[in-house]
């Protein structure tokens, strides 16, 4: 029984049309891009330094003087709420002897004072005070903290290391039109973890860009989602797939009892599985109907979302490194950051958000936690992903493995690497 989807003519704000599949061939994806320091350097110079990158949430820095220091590769960027409530971003480096001004994380300061010789900068990056200024006969550096382009979208703050970058909206392309209906600004962060993983950052992006692995490492999800009836859409540099949740995979027999994970979806919506007489594969539409009818009285405004969005996973890759499991009531956001020097390591930023009820006070932001691989459970599904990735990275270094042999279910991975190639080698210039 095929999945019933929202179709043209039904209510939707997020575009639902299937994008034509890009013709990207079937060639092996060379493995060296996951392991080579040379590729890592090219990637840094030509891709990371030219892409808009997610820095923080707007509400991480609500008041003047609030700042986030975020790291990308060897750089650390200060994102600072200004006196006039605008947001600006600077390199986190003292112009005197190169010391980093503040450690990574969230803070609040009236000015940024270097701990070494107390050179001091205002929230706007300008010099406030240089001790013994008269002992610098050459004067002071002509600028304060070097600034980088910074803008906001979707409740997030973005920055770009290229001072001549295209506007953020241009870079994001279809993304705002697709995701604005979810109103991320109405969601509150519930978890903010970073885990150091022993793999290249792209191995992590790949892991979330296909559903083929569900039958491999997440067999329990075959009783939670349909991993085969999936719509894949590749855009200019971003991509998405639409995964039906609250149903079972055609790979398994439909069960007479509703599976526990699907019961959980029903309960989260306020339904009682014990009172449901339908079949397992009827639950998805029943939950959609229930949420449409009861959402408002429960304090949730779903009016900008289509019916599928009330149950399904709309999964987006915002190039290069943001993967989003977007749901009506929550958002699971992964930001994959490269290690500064080692292509075999990365930082996996895991942030969860939940939709607040109308009028609900925003809870306090959770503190950021840092863990090493395997130190802390991320929950069953993500543990299964995490457990697998170091083995992938080790295998990439084997003489016995030439590269990735991708199938149709992995089209988004092929597209992702094509876009990286466009940055690294020039459009259509990949070797």
């Amino acid at each position, binding site marked *: 029984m095929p999945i019933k989807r929202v179709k043209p003519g039904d209510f939707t704000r997020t575009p639902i049309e299937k994008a034509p599949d890009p013709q990207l061939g079937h060639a092996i994806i060379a493995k060296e891009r996951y392991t080579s320091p040379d590729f890592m350097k090219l990637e840094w110079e030509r891709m990371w330094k030219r892409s808009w990158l997610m820095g923080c949430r707007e509400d991480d820095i609500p008041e003047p003087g609030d700042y986030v220091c975020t790291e990308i590769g060897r750089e650390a960027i200060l994102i600072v709420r200004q006196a006039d409530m605008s947001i600006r971003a600077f390199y986190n480096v003292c112009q005197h002897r190169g010391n980093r001004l503040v450690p990574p994380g969230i803070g609040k300061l009236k000015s940024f004072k270097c701990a070494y010789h107390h050179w001091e900068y205002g929230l706007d990056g300008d010099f406030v005070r240089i001790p013994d200024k008269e002992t610098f006969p050459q004067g002071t550096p002509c600028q304060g903290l070097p600034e980088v382009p910074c803008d906001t979208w979707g409740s997030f703050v973005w920055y770009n290391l290229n001072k001549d970058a295209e506007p953020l909206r241009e870079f994001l392309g279809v993304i705002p039109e697709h995701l604005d209906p979810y109103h991320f600004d109405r969601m509150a962060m519930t978890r903010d973890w970073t885990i150091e993983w022993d793999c290249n950052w792209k191995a992590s992006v790949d892991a979330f860009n296909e559903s083929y692995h569900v039958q491999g490492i997440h067999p329990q999800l075959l009783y939670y989602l349909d991993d085969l009836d999936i719509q894949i859409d590749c855009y200019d540099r971003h991509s998405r797939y639409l995964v039906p949740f609250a149903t079972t995979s055609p790979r*398994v027999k439909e069960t*007479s009892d509703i599976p526990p994970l699907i019961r959980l979806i029903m*309960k989260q919506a306020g339904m009682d599985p*014990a009172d449901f007489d339908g079949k397992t594969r009827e639950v998805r539409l029943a939950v959609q109907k229930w949420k449409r009818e009861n959402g408002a009285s429960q304090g949730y405004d779903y009016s900008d979302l289509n019916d599928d969005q009330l149950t399904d996973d709309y999964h987006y890759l915002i190039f290069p490194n943001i993967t989003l499991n977007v749901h009506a009531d929550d958002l699971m956001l992964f930001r994959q950051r490269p290690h500064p020097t080692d292509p075999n390591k990365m930082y996996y930023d895991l942030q969860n958000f939940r939709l607040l009820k109308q009028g609900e006070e925003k809870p306090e932001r959770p503190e950021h936690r840092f863990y090493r691989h395997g130190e802390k459970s991320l929950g069953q599904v993500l543990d299964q992903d995490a457990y697998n990735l170091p083995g992938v990275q080790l295998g990439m270094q084997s003489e016995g493995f030439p590269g990735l042999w991708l199938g149709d279910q992995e089209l988004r991975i092929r597209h992702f690497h094509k876009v990286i190639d466009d940055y690294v080698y020039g459009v259509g210039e990949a070797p």
Partner: protein
Amino acid sequence: MDLGLKGKKAVVTGATKGIGRRIVETLADEGVDIAICSRTAEEVEETLAVLRAKGINAVGEAVNVRDGEAYKAWISRAGEQLGGIDILIPNVSGGAGMDSEKNWQRNFEVDVMGSVRAVETAVPFLKKSGEGSVVFIVSTNAIETFAAPMAYNALKASLITYSKQLGQFHGKRRIRFNALSPGTIFVEGGAWDMIKTSQPDFYNATIAAHPFGRMGSAEEVAKAVAFLASPAASWINGTHLIVDGGYTKGVHF
């Protein structure tokens, strides 16, 4: 040994899948005419086609057991369509679950009242049989702690008591009543099929705890049901038969 089932007429509730499905196929193979119900019409039709291909008369309808009046009306209709009822097998279940208080209501309505209403509606037919037989499908969850404290377990247990007392009460009408508890039975699309895929460690540990190193099949349950239901079991009344390959630990004196 001839079970004496040929030409008998059986009503089996919830018989399109799993153990119930295997029971009706086994009875049909013995030449029994069958009436079945389930929640969905397509599944009823598919099952009836399979049963009729065995050369017996099979009738059935989509019925929601929780709708007591509709359910009783169907039992009567089934008796009329078959031209009598010799065998009644209340098999349908509301299933396990610990979602809310409604699980108790659900198992009460489906497992308990689904059996009670079937018996009360079928007794006028069964007493005309002369060899009437009722087999309640219970569960070893009723006799031993398993998994979690659930309405399913406790309410299934009530059927054992109910069955014993019916056996005394209706003996003079020549109707036998017995309860049968399947143990861990592997059925495609059943709970253990899901657990095998989604919780392989738990599945393997359960297998390992079985004396025979495997779970039972629906067919093994169906054969025991067929025997208990048949005239061959004429002197077995008010008992509770455990069909679990020796998996449960309790001793029954």
